[in-house]
């Protein structure tokens, strides 16, 4: 292989290289610093992530639309968009970990940073891989890293229990996915997605086989984005894991799941040449209806079961399942605009969901409780914090003038454009149901009086900065969301 070709490929994955460097520096740090309790590790991590982000943005500016490493991965605006989300979310998690009470007294801070960098690499590879093996490998990398991260607070029993459940569920899901991939490989005797699409065009296989293969693979992806049949792990793991990690799972790993889902279905199951704004399907099966049905179930179950929840993290777990449902609507509309709308929704979802988790962490730090009842009267004690939480929750419901509304409207726009009226009606009704449990938290904060013995909540400088940095986009993009729209639209170009 000509070394010039190798250098070009290496240049295309500079962000991952930077992340790997950070990991190795962290490992060296682990050896030298002998399990110190200080936060030096996090600084290294933050510097690393900023470096990776910078590399990604540079690549983004160069408008690259190319494959690397023999077509293993595609480096295009789509993958770069997800790399940005990956490294930003890790950056935020690191910032959160400074003040996280759960992570404060672990002695494995350096390993933590290393694993997080691994997580980042896994996620960006997921978004860019064009090869079944690469997809499997990156999903495994991401999963193993998150198994470790979930059970990171080894002192806390529920965190290990969550870790165990997560790894068992995850391994079996990836088992199914591997089996699905093997059958797909059998059918299309090639691991490259583009060639799989060609085999679909040239030869026709009995739909049963393609259905079984696709559903098994979908089980793997579904596990990542916690869609309905594969969602039951999410509430327990979100509740058990330390809050920063829950945030990471809710935002980053879900985004990665959607990235690989979109990449897989839009490359393997669709002909690249598309006359109308809608792509022509090549695969013999109606996978769109499958996705639509799953989306309807995911939304409804996510919203309904969230109502009686009492633990805020569990509530946000079900809410993130519901949001996965809303995004799946976009997936079931195979058009370029649909991809753009999903990416927009993901970006908006990133801000509001991460913000909500940061607030949860701060409250947990002060009141040592994740029970919703402990939020009553929060507005009197911490007005700024509860105002931010109210904005995030209203945005999650999808009330204008916040960004959540724009996300939903854009998805509904493309859905109605395609004529999926029944799905939009279900989504719209779900929005009303979702108001019920989001407003319940707000009601607790604002409409109830604080218990007498509540001590004042100190938010700390860094968490406040984090919250504000998430609050501004949630409100700004609710009003003036043209830039976000163009960014999402541009990022929807896939190799």
């Amino acid at each position, binding site marked *: 292989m000509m070394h010039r070709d190798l250098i070009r490929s290496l240049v295309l994955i500079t962000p991952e290289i930077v992340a790997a460097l950070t990991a190795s520096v962290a490992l060296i740090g682990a050896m030298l610093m002998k399990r110190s309790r200080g936060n030096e590790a996090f600084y290294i991590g933050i510097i690393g992530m900023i470096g990776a982000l910078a590399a990604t943005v540079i690549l983004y500016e160069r408008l690259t639309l190319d494959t690397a490493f023999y077509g293993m991965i595609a480096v295009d605006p789509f993958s770069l968009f997800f790399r940005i989300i990956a490294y930003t979310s890790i950056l935020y998690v690191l910032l959160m970990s400074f003040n996280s009470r759960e992570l404060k007294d672990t002695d494995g801070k350096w390993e933590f940073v290393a694993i997080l960098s691994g997580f980042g690499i896994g996620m960006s590879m997921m978004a860019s891989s064009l090869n079944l093996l690469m997809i499997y490998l990156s999903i495994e990398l991401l999963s193993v890293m998150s198994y470790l991260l979930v059970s990171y607070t080894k002192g806390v029993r529920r965190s290990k229990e969550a870790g165990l459940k997560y790894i068992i569920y995850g391994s079996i899901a990836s088992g199914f996915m591997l089996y699905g991939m093997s059958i797909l490989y059998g059918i299309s005797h090639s691991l490259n997605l583009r060639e799989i699409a060609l085999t679909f065009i040239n030869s026709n296989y009995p739909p049963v086989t393609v259905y079984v293969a696709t559903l098994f693979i979908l089980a793997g992806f579904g596990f990542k984005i916690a869609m309905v049949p594969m969602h039951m792990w999410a509430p327990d793991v979100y509740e058990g894991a330390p809050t920063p990690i829950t945030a990471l799972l809710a935002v980053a790993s879900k985004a990665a799941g959607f990235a690989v889902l979109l990449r897989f279905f839009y490359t393997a199951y669709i002909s690249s040449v598309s006359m109308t704004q809608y792509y022509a399907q090549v695969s013999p099966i109606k996978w769109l209806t499958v996705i639509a049905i799953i989306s309807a179930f995911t939304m409804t179950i996510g919203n309904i079961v969230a109502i009686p929840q009492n633990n805020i993290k569990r509530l946000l777990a079900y809410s993130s399942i519901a949001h996965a449902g809303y995004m799946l609507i976009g997936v079931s509309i195979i058009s370029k605009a649909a991809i753009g709308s999903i990416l927009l929704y993901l970006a908006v979802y990133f801000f509001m969901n991460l913000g909500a988790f940061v607030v949860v962490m701060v409250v947990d730090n002060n009141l040592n409780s994740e029970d919703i009842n402990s939020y009553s009267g929060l507005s009197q004690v911490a007005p700024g914090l509860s105002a931010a939480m109210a904005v995030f929750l209203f945005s999650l419901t999808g009330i*204008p003038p916040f960004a959540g509304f724009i996300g939903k409207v854009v998805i*509904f*726009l493309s859905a109605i454009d395609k004529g999926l009226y029944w799905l939009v009606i279900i989504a719209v009704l779900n929005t009303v149901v979702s*108001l019920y449990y989001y407003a319940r938290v707000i009601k607790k904060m*604002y*409409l109830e009086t604080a218990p007498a013995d509540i001590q004042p909540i100190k938010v700390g400088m860094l968490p406040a900065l984090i919250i504000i940095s998430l609050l501004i986009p949630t409100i700004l993009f609710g009003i003036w969301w*043209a830039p976000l729209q163009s960014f999402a639209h541009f990022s929807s170009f896939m190799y």
Partner: protein
Amino acid sequence: MLSNYLLSWIVFTPMIGFVLVLLMPRDKVAWIRWTAAVFTFIPMILSFYLYAIMNPSDGGFQFIEKYSWISAFNIQYYLGIDGISAPMVILTGLLGFLSVFASWNINKAHKAYFALYLLLVTAMFGVFMSLDFFLFYIFWELMLFPMYFLIGIWGGPRREYAAIKFFLYTLAGSVLMLVVILAFYFNSTDPSTGRHTFDIVTLMNQANQGPFIKEFWIRLAMYIALFIGFAIKVPVFPFHTWLPDAHVEAPTAISVILAGVLLKMGAYGLMRISFPLLPDMARYTAIGLAILGLINIVYGALVAMAQTDFKKMIAYSSVSHMGFVILGLSSMTFIGFNGALMQMFNHGIITGMLFLLVGVIYDRAHHRDLNGFGGLATYMPIYAGITSLAFMGSLGLPGLSGFIGEILVFLGSFKVYPVIVIISATGVIFTAAYFLWAYQRVFLGAANEKYKGIAEINGRELFTLIPLVLIALFFGVYPVPFFNLVGPSLSKLLMMVGH
């Protein structure tokens, strides 16, 4: 300069106030109040100025401000007013300003209260002025969460229940509306650019509406979905149960705004969106609308008679009065439309007065049980006088503006639905009965020593009431300026609806 950005100035001045109030220190209550007063006073004056320089003879939209907001989806920042929205804007300005003084005795979290209040005023102006469907929906929903907090935090004992009920009802309605808006968007072609558009004005001429929504059943479904969204706001009979709770629990100033302006948005929505965009459906379902109007009038009046809570009675009286508006709209005649719009304006003025009056007595006696009072006229003659005038205006006594609205609705709709009008005319009797019975229970009868030293109505309260009294009297005696303002636009609307 001012006049070509006038509408934006009116909409966003309260926002400036909102920001200022937020920046103010928490304990400077007086400052906060006066900023709120100033920043609602300016839009009111601007709206009067708007009325002054508006040329009433042209029925079309004036003071248009049209800028591209989100070019990706062809969404514009499109403001404009015509004869139909002008009175509503003036009403919002007026009540918005007066209610600030009615919230003088709010006792907790003043900063948050006035901030949310100013946000609410902006949202209301926005709804009446926006001509872009998307912008209209944004302002329509923007009004939701300030109201939720205003009722929820500063309300009465069952405020949480009332607040969440209000929120859920309105959200359910508006969510249906969103689906219809999107359906319109996709089936519309902007003649100039050929792209989809949210622009209500272009959607008004049927040529721009795409093929898909030409089918009868689709159009009917869309009309009904839109109607439910607006009916919840009006409120129309089956969807009205949120109103009494919201009114009873909301603080005085918010009840005034709720009754004075928010109820008009439903009817305004019908006139601005449902009728021009789906005229054939409007005609097809007019009889249903009339029947609902009839039920509203008679049912509202009878249930009002059964209430013992002063505010709840007025809430049901609003249901009854809005019934006239619905009847007027269903008549599809020029006189009927004028009557409906006049009734909307009057109801805002008179019910605003009624709620302010209830606020006066509530601040003194801290309860609203009609049977709990009695013989107040001896202690508070001026208060009794103004209340009797408000009651008379409300039951439609000639010489006050209420009468004009009602009689025009009757005159207009008799031609189309004689039987319905005759039955709803009985509403006039029940209205008189429950108002006078309430007046008698509260004011007449032997002087009640329980309220021996009760204070007469004070200057501030008078300041909020006098303008409303004068307007009610003026428009009762000389309503011609109102008709000149409203006439041309209504005839344009009538042509659109095709009668």
